[in-house]
């Protein structure tokens, strides 16, 4: 447990909390970007360089931009008139707190069998590429198909219906 871990973890949790609690939707999008960046730094802290940079590219580069675009395309979602939380917010908060309590209890009370001071795995990008086109080639193709289908589906869903004037 290094000092960097505590700083990055605090940043991530603060970003997530701000994304959930802030009133302005644009501020929430910025806060969730901070949380994504913190998670990418946690990946880098775990010596998973490829996953960390993929996280930065996909989440900060694409998903955050998508969220901002969606906020701008739905204009009146920026300024809520009567509260930002739903009527039965207490039940949701209770469920989330209960799940965190169960997960935290399970983590803290489980017996550690994994080697907790394992050597840094020497994984290069070349090895990841070899694995992607070797052992994991079928999942890679399925993900390619899924991304194509999702792209076409998103365009069709968000397309204006024919014959409708705005």
């Amino acid at each position, binding site marked *: 447990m290094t000092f960097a871990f505590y700083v990055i973890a605090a940043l991530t949790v603060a970003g997530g909390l701000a994304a959930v609690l802030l009133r302005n*939707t644009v501020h929430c999008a910025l806060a969730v970007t901070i949380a994504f960046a913190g998670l990418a730094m946690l990946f880098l802290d775990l010596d998973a360089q490829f996953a960390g940079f993929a996280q930065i590219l996909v989440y900060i580069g694409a998903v955050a931009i998508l969220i901002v675009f969606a906020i701008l395309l739905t204009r009146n979602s920026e300024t809520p008139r009567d509260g930002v939380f739903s009527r039965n917010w207490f039940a949701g908060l209770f469920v*989330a707190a209960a799940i965190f309590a169960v997960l935290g209890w399970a983590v803290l009370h489980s017996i550690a069998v994994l080697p*907790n001071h394992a050597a840094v795995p020497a994984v290069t990008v070349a090895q990841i590429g070899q694995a992607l086109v070797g052992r*994991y080639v079928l999942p890679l193709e399925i993900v390619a198909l899924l991304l194509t289908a999702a792209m076409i589906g998103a365009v069709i869903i*968000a397309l204006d219906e024919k014959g409708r004037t705005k």
Partner: protein
Amino acid sequence: MTPLSGFLLVAALVFAIGLAGALTRRNAILVLIGIELMLNAANLNLIAFWRYGPHPAALTGMMFAIFSIAVAAAEAAVGLGLVIAIYRHARTTDLDQMNRMKG
């Protein structure tokens, strides 16, 4: 506290925050943000178990996280497209006001 349990606790906290956001916010986009946070927490778990697991050279957890990131990107695109389509129809993204099955 071992390093692995530290990362697992952070992942559990982020998951709980995302779940609270998805369950309590009224704006559909904010609900999607909560779902993204939950997916990210799961990815952090996968990477942490890969790092401290017995066979990190097998790359299993890393590959799972990378494919999970790809699927999450597709999910975000389709989800936000749905939000925009609903907004065009109902002129709101407030989930409490979307109480009709028939448009």
